C-alpha cells in the first residue's frame, strides 16, 4: 500500500519475485547488548482469545515486568460477524433480526436504535403510537437490568466470587421469563420493528411485571449485602481501573465509565427518545473514577430502572402498537395459536378470503418490503454500556444501503490500556470487567 520504509535493522532487496526483506542491515552487537540490558522479568503475556476471564473472545497482549503491567494492548475481531454487510442484503424490517444479535446482552437497545434510525429516515418518528413507545421503554429498562446483572455476575465470576455469579444469573432468569412471556424468546427477540412492535403484550403481562418488581426489590439488596461492604470485594475493586473525566472524554468513553468520573451525561435526559422525558428517574454518578464506583452505579441504575418500569405499568394505555400507515406496518394484531406461534386469524381471513388487493399488498410488504427515501440519519440510545449510535444510509431502495453501529463496548474497550498500564496483572481482569465489553457488540 504505502512505500516500504527502511528500518535501522532491516534491509530491502528487489528481486524478480518481488521485494525481499532481511535483517542483515543492522548492527547485531548493538541489538545483543540492548537485549542483555533489558530486565529478565519482562515478558509478554498473551491472554485469550480463549481465556476464562476475558469476557468472551477478547485477546489481551500484556507486557509485564514482574507483576506490573507495563503495556497493554487489545486484539479484537475474533467474533467479527459481518452483520453490517449482511443487513445490506435484507429488507429494512428483516434488519431487526440481525441487529438484535450484535450486542447479545442488550438486544432491545440494538433494535430500538435501529428502528429509530429507520423511522427517522421514513419521517414517521412522531407517529409511533404511545403504547409502542411505553413498551419499548419497558423492555429497554428490563434489558438494562439483565445486562447489568450479567456485568456484575461475570465480573464476580472473574474475581472468583462464584456466589455473585449464581445470584446474577438467578435474577437474570426472572427477567428472561418476562422476555419469553412478551416476545416468545429468551434472547435475540426481533420484537421491536420499524414503526412499532411486532405484536402487543400478551394477557397477564402486567401481573407478571408486578410479581417481578416485588421479587427484584427483595433480591437487589442482596448484592449490597454480599458485595458493597465486603472488604475483599472492596479491596479488589477500589482504585482499580482508574480513568478520570479528561481520559473519558478523550477516549470517547460513555455510560457507567463516564458517569463514574462524575459527569451525569445520559442520553435519556439530554436527548430524550421514546418519551423518556415523561418519566421520573435520576442519573446516578460517583466521582471515584474506579471499578468500585462503576459497580455501585450499576446497582443504582438497576434501582432506577425498577422505578421506570413501575411508571411504565401505570402508563400502559390500550391502543395500537404499530403505525397507522399500512404501507409500512406489518399486521401486529397477533394472537397465540395452539402451535405456540403468533398468528392473526382475522388478517388471514381478510387476505385469503375477501380481498385480493389486501393479499397483494401483504405479499408485497412481506417479500419486497417498504421503500425508504434516500438520505442518511443518526439515532442514538443510552444502552447499559453507553451511547449506542446507528448511522443508517438509504438509497431509496427496499434494503439498507449502509448501516453502521457505533457500539459503546467497542469504544469503551479502547480505554482498557489507559486503565491497566502501571497496575497489577490481576487488576487487568477487574478493569476489563468494569468496562463490561460484550464481544458481539465490539466486533459485530
Amino acid at each position, binding site marked *: *500500500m504505502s512505500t516500504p520504509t527502511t528500518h535501522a535493522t532491516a534491509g530491502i532487496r528487489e528481486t524478480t519475485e518481488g521485494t525481499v526483506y532481511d535483517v542483515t542491515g543492522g548492527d547485531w552487537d548493538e541489538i545483543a547488548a540492548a537485549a542483555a540490558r533489558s530486565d529478565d522479568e519482562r515478558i509478554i503475556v498473551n491472554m485469550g482469545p480463549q481465556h476464562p476471564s476475558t469476557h468472551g473472545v477478547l485477546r489481551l497482549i500484556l507486557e509485564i515486568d514482574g507483576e506490573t503491567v507495563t503495556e497493554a494492548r487489545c486484539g479484537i*475481531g475474533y467474533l467479527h460477524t459481518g452483520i453490517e454487510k449482511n443487513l445490506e*442484503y435484507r429488507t429494512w424490517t428483516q434488519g431487526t433480526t440481525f441487529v438484535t444479535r450484535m450486542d447479545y446482552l442488550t438486544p432491545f437497545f440494538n433494535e430500538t436504535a435501529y428502528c429509530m434510525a429507520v423511522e427517522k429516515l421514513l419521517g414517521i418518528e412522531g407517529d409511533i403510537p404511545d403504547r409502542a413507545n411505553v413498551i419499548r421503554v419497558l423492555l429497554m429498562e428490563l434489558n438494562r437490568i439483565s445486562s447489568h446483572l450479567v456485568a456484575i455476575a461475570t465480573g464476580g465470576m472473574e474475581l472468583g466470587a462464584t456466589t455473585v455469579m449464581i445470584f446474577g444469573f438467578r435474577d437474570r432468569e426472572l427477567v428472561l421469563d418476562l422476555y419469553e412471556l412478551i416476545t416468545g424468546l429468551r434472547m435475540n427477540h426481533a420484537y421491536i420493528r420499524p414503526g412499532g412492535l411486532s405484536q402487543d403484550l400478551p394477557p397477564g403481562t402486567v401481573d407478571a411485571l408486578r410479581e417481578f418488581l416485588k421479587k427484584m426489590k427483595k433480591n437487589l439488596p442482596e448484592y449490597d449485602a454480599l458485595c458493597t461492604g465486603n472488604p475483599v470485594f472492596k479491596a479488589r475493586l477500589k482504585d482499580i481501573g482508574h480513568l478520570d473525566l479528561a481520559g473519558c472524554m478523550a477516549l470517547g468513553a460513555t455510560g457507567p465509565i463516564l458517569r463514574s468520573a462524575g459527569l451525569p451525561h445520559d442520553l435519556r435526559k439530554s436527548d430524550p427518545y421514546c418519551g423518556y422525558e415523561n418519566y421520573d428517574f435520576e442519573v446516578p454518578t460517583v466521582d471515584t473514577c474506579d471499578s468500585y464506583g462503576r459497580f455501585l452505579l450499576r446497582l443504582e441504575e438497576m434501582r432506577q430502572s425498577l422505578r421506570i418500569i413501575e411508571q411504565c405499568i401505570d402508563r400502559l394505555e390500550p391502543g395500537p402498537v404499530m403505525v397507522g400507515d399500512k404501507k409500512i406496518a406489518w399486521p401486529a394484531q397477533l394472537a397465540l395459536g395452539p402451535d405456540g406461534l403468533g398468528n392473526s386469524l382475522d388478517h388471514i381471513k381478510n387476505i385469503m378470503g375477501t380481498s385480493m388487493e389486501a393479499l397483494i399488498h401483504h405479499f408485497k410488504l412481506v417479500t419486497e418490503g417498504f421503500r425508504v427515501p434516500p438520505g442518511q440519519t443518526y439515532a442514538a440510545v443510552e444502552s447499559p454500556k453507553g451511547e449506542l449510535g446507528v448511522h443508517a444510509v438509504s438509497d*431509496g*431502495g427496499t434494503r439498507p444501503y449502509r448501516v453502521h453501529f457505533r457500539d459503546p463496548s467497542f469504544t469503551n474497550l479502547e480505554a482498557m490500556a489507559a486503565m491497566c498500564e502501571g497496575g497489577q496483572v490481576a487488576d487487568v481482569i477487574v478493569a476489563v470487567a468494569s468496562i463490561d465489553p460484550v464481544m458481539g457488540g465490539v466486533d459485530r
Partner: protein
Amino acid sequence: MTEGNGNGNGAVPAPRQDPGEVIGVRRGMFGADKGGDTSGYGGLVRTVRLPGASRRPYGGYFDEVADELEGALEEQGLVPGEVIEKTVVDRNEVTFHVAREHLLQVTRTLRDDPALRFELCTGVSGVHFPGDKGRELHAVYHLRSITHNRVIRLEVSAPDSDPHVPSVVEVYPTNDWHERETYDFFGLIFDGHPALTRIMMPDDWQGFPQRKDYPLGGIPVEYKGAQIPAPDQRRSYS
C-alpha cells in the same frame, strides 16, 4: 491500485452538482436483467439522488453552529466556502461536507471553540458509493456536544483512486480504533494515524469486505438436492 477505473479527473474530488447528488441509477424492478422480465417493469428507470445542499436559514441550532464555525475558520485565515463544500439539512439533522484537506482544522475548531465545543466524537463510518464517480468513498463523523447538547455530522469524501483522508486521532483519540475499522472494511487510508492496521479481519486478509464491489461471500446452501443461492446472488427487488 485502481487506475483506469474510468474517472478522468484522477485524484481530485469531482465538483458537486445541485440539486441533490446523483449516486446511481436503478433499472427495472425485480433484478432480472437478462431479458427474462415479462412483468412490464423492466423499462423502469429511476435516478437515486441524495438530499442536496440547503439554503439558510437552516433552522434550530444549525444556523448558530454554522455561523460560529464559519467565523472561527475566517479567524484562522480560511475561506469558509472552500472548507465547507456544502451544508445539508435533512430530517432535522445537519451535515457539513468538508473538503478533506481541511478536516483536521475543522475538527480541532469544533472541539476547541467555546461556542462550539463538540467534545465527543462517536467515531467514523465509511460509506461506499461506487456510482458517485470521483467521490466514491465517504467518511462520516458524528460529533456530539455535551456542553450545548447538539449533534452534527461531518462528511468527507475521497476518490477510489486516491483513498486518503487525514486522521483525526490527534484531535479525538477515540477515533483510533474507529479509523482502523473503516480502513479494514473500506480501504480508506487515514493519513497520520499512529498505527493503521487491520482490526477486525485477520491481518493477511485480501480486499476490503464492506465495499459494495466485494461480494457478501455467501456460499450456496443445499437442501436435499435443491440449491438455495447465497443472499447476494438471489433475485431481488431493486
